[in-house]
């Protein structure tokens, strides 16, 4: 590297290429690893090229720009969040399969280098938490919550774009790190002093820091947006205790995002100061204290668990009551339990580091606080079971996920109570028991919820149902695959196998690691089933179309509008008279009415802010990672200029004439009248056009 290119490229040079090391030191292992890493890198490049050429070939750039990238519509932003989450999910699942493969073959070695394995578990964890789970739940809240509370958009549509832009920038950074390696090997928690510059001078940890920081900023903004929307934009009559339960969980998640993201921002920002400006906050020397990083990280990390799980609780509540055909049992108890979990989640973070060396009484107090969370969670489980009790249950795909969730989640919760006992934790901490526990919470508790939600609301978003058979196969494969992949890890943990180990020397582990490997393959199959399901559904979209918009005999307001909903959601903002607002309308025969008048509708105008932030965010983070200061300054300057210019913009809305709204709405109402309503037994047949038979009097409980 000479001086003339140094200002341009910073510390980026040929050694960042994934096959460079194998060219320098060709051994069997390094070549195998280089092939895998280069394969992943080429997938990223090929994927990007296919998208670019495809869009050019189909002449869809203008469409993409106008209809999606610059759209402030919460529904489109939600869909983009979910699409991003699914792409990242695919990558992280493949990484998980590689890790399982390594540990299945890992007796005395395996095929991955320790460094490569370290990058795999770090990216897997980072992606799953920050770039799969967070965008997935943000996307679903984005899509559903405004419809449920009867409003036209979030409070701050452009800020919503910026949230998406920031998350996309972080995800892009993680993807770029496959091509210009390495990523961090410090795990998704990134503990110093391993991640300090003294131990880890390369670009990997910096990639991790900036990717996570971008995601954190995004989530903070999303949290503010959701909270303000729920506080200020509820339709008239939508009192607090009439909110659908999903909206309650969205509110609690939003509040947690607002208050739990700052500790992570502090932790990563201080780590960055250590690495870039030679601060000594977490170093081993000169008065640094790395234990504070762990403390700060988990002050974020534990509420984060509930940020992830609460929306899924909300989704399951909707799914249980809809597919049991009953009103939710113990609504008030569920609301109180949700609020209690949200507050308690701030009081337990120390249980992530019981073994750090603090006094036994501190451990005991935090252990007890941890067990307390089991109480509101237990209340929820009973409420859900009692919702099902004597309901007329339809075992649709979301219900399969929900049933899998309720059983597996209780098991995971019990192991959590076990781990909350500090003396037990001392025995199994840092083993695969822990890995098994949190996957047992997050796969049934988060991922099943998100997949159930996707199957549940997909017809709302796209106007046709997802195909059931492949959906069921995917759901069962997820459940079985999960059990096979993670139950053995409990055993391995008790046997003493440490987490994050690239190789082991105890043959007794082998049967368990092999079983887990089989489970991972089944999960991969489940992913394939999801893809096939999507493909088949799109192919048969006319057969499964539900234009009327209420395919499941839904209870809350989002089912009251057409599928897909118009961009303004509601032709006229509805008035709410009780809980389960739409079911109440149907019961009283007030659904699908013509309003007296159609006022003009003011909508936010398109804006390029989200795209600008996504591009400059990626550029700033990339420049910081590789010490390309010109890029950082340039991109930061553009961001600042864009924000200030935006402040001078005055034409930020456009008006839709009421006449146009009237025409669309009357067309749809005519379609409603022309449609044959169906019985619940026909729900999964082609006869389902999204119009249920009106409820029999007295049948709704």
């Amino acid at each position, binding site marked *: 590297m000479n001086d003339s290119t140094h200002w341009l490229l910073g510390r980026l040079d040929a050694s960042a290429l994934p096959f460079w090391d194998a060219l320098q030191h060709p051994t069997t292992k390094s070549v195998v690893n280089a092939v895998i890493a280069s394969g992943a890198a080429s997938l990223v490049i090929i994927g990007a090229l296919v998208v670019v050429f495809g869009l050019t070939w189909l002449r869809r750039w203008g469409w993409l720009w106008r209809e999606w990238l610059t759209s402030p519509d919460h529904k489109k932003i939600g869909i983009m969040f979910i699409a991003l989450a699914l792409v990242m999910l695919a990558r992280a699942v493949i990484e998980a399969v590689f890790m399982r493969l390594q540990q299945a073959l890992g007796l005395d070695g395996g095929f991955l280098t320790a460094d490569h394995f370290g990058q795999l578990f770090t990216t897997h964890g980072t992606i799953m938490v920050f770039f799969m789970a967070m965008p997935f739940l943000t996307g679903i809240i984005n899509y559903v919550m405004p419809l449920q509370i009867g409003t036209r958009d979030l409070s701050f549509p452009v800020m919503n774009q910026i949230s998406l832009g920031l998350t996309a920038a972080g995800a892009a950074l993680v993807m770029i790190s496959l091509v210009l390696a390495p990523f961090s090997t410090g795990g998704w928690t990134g503990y110093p002093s391993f991640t300090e510059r003294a131990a880890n001078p390369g670009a990997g940890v910096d990639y991790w820091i900036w990717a996570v920081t971008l995601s954190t900023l995004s989530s903070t903004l999303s949290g503010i947006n959701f909270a303000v929307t729920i506080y200020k934009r509820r339709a008239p009559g939508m009192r607090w205790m009439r909110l659908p339960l999903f909206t309650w969980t969205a509110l609690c998640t939003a509040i947690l995002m607002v*208050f739990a993201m700052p500790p992570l921002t502090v932790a990563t*920002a201080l780590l960055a100061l250590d690495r870039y400006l030679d*601060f000594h*906050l977490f170093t081993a*020397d000169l008065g640094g*204290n790395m234990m504070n990083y762990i403390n700060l990280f988990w002050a974020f990390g534990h509420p984060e668990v509930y940020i992830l799980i609460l929306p899924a609780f909300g989704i399951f509540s909707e799914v249980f009551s809809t597919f049991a055909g009953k009103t939710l049992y113990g609504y008030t108890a569920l609301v109180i339990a949700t609020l209690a979990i949200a507050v308690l989640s701030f009081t337990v973070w120390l249980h992530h580091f019981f073994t750090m060396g603090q006094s036994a009484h501190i451990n005991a107090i935090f252990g007890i606080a941890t067990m307390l969370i089991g109480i509101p969670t237990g209340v929820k489980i009973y409420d859900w079971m009692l919702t099902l009790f004597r309901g007329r249950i339809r075992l649709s795909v979301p219900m399969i996920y929900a049933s899998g969730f309720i059983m597996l989640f209780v098991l995971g919760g019990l192991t959590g109570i076990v781990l909350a006992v500090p003396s037990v934790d001392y025995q199994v901490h840092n083993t695969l028991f822990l890995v098994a526990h949190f996957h047992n919470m997050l796969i049934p508790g988060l991922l099943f919820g998100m997949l159930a939600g996707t199957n549940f609301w997909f017809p709302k978003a796209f106007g046709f149902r997802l195909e059931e058979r492949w959906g069921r196969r995917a759901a069962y494969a997820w459940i079985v695959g999960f059990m096979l992949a993670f139950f053995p890890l409990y055993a391995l943990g008790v046997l003493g196998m440490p987490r994050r180990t690239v190789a082991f020397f105890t043959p007794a582990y082998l049967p368990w690691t092999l079983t887990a490997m089989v489970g991972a393959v089944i999960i991969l199959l489940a992913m394939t089933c999801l893809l096939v399901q999507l493909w088949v559904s799109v192919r048969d979209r006319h057969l499964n179309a539900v234009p009327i918009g209420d395919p499941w005999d839904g209870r809350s307001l989002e089912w009251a509008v057409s599928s897909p909903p118009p961009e303004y959601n509601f032709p006229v903002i509805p008035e709410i008279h009780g809980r389960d607002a739409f079911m109440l309308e149907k019961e009283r025969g007030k659904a699908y009415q013509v309003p007296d008048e159609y006022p003009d509708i003011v909508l936010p105008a398109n804006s390029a802010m989200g795209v600008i932030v996504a591009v400059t965010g990626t550029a700033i983070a990339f420049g910081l990672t590789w010490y390309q200061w010109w890029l950082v300054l340039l991109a930061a300057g553009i961001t600042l200029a864009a924000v200030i210019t935006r*402040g*001078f913009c*005055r034409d930020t809305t456009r008006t839709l004439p009421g006449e146009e709204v009237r025409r669309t709405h009357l067309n749809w109402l005519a379609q409603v009248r022309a449609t044959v309503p169906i019985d619940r037994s026909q729900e999964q047949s082609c006869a389902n056009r999204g119009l249920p038979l009106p409820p029999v009097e007295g049948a709704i409980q």
Partner: protein
Amino acid sequence: MSALTARQTAATDAPARHPGINLGHAHREGEESREEMVFGFWVFMMSDMILFGLLFATYVTMLGGTAGGPGPKELFDMRGAFFETMLLLVSSFTFGMASLALKYRDDRRALVGWLLITLLLGLGFVAHELYDFHKMFEAGGVPSRSGFLSAFFSLVPLHGLHVSVACVWLIALLGQLAVHGLDAQTKNGLIRLAILWHFLDIVWIGIFSLVYLGGLA
């Protein structure tokens, strides 16, 4: 009783809709979006408060981490801290006067005048703080010297950075005022900036009490 009823029915006694100054009935345009925006900004302030709170906590836990380097007594200068405190406090007051001018006067001169004074005080604060840091650097108080100094330099300059951003925002708003006049959006901006400004003054109470006075006591 009658006085009370009179007060309640008075035309200007509008219900307060958000923190910070409420413009009331004379400023109808954009009232709804204003309520929402100010509330959103308030939530952001609360998030920021957590950020500062944790940096304060980190600072306190690092007080012992001087690693043989200079500590508060060698580095801090009470007169500088006092001067900065006064600049910020007065600027908070002048921003309050600007808010009143925004609410009760039609001409922009008073508003712009108070805003310019506030801006000068804010810039003066930043400049003096930089000068203070410069003196600390000369006395060997650099962040790479010890954990204590690292904690100091991650807390206090972050506040300074906030003030700088607020100054940039103020300049941008003065620009908007020049281009678009005192329309609903400029008013919304000014009300949110006022909240940020007063909030930063509250954070500074923590800094001068805990960091400077606590360190020198």
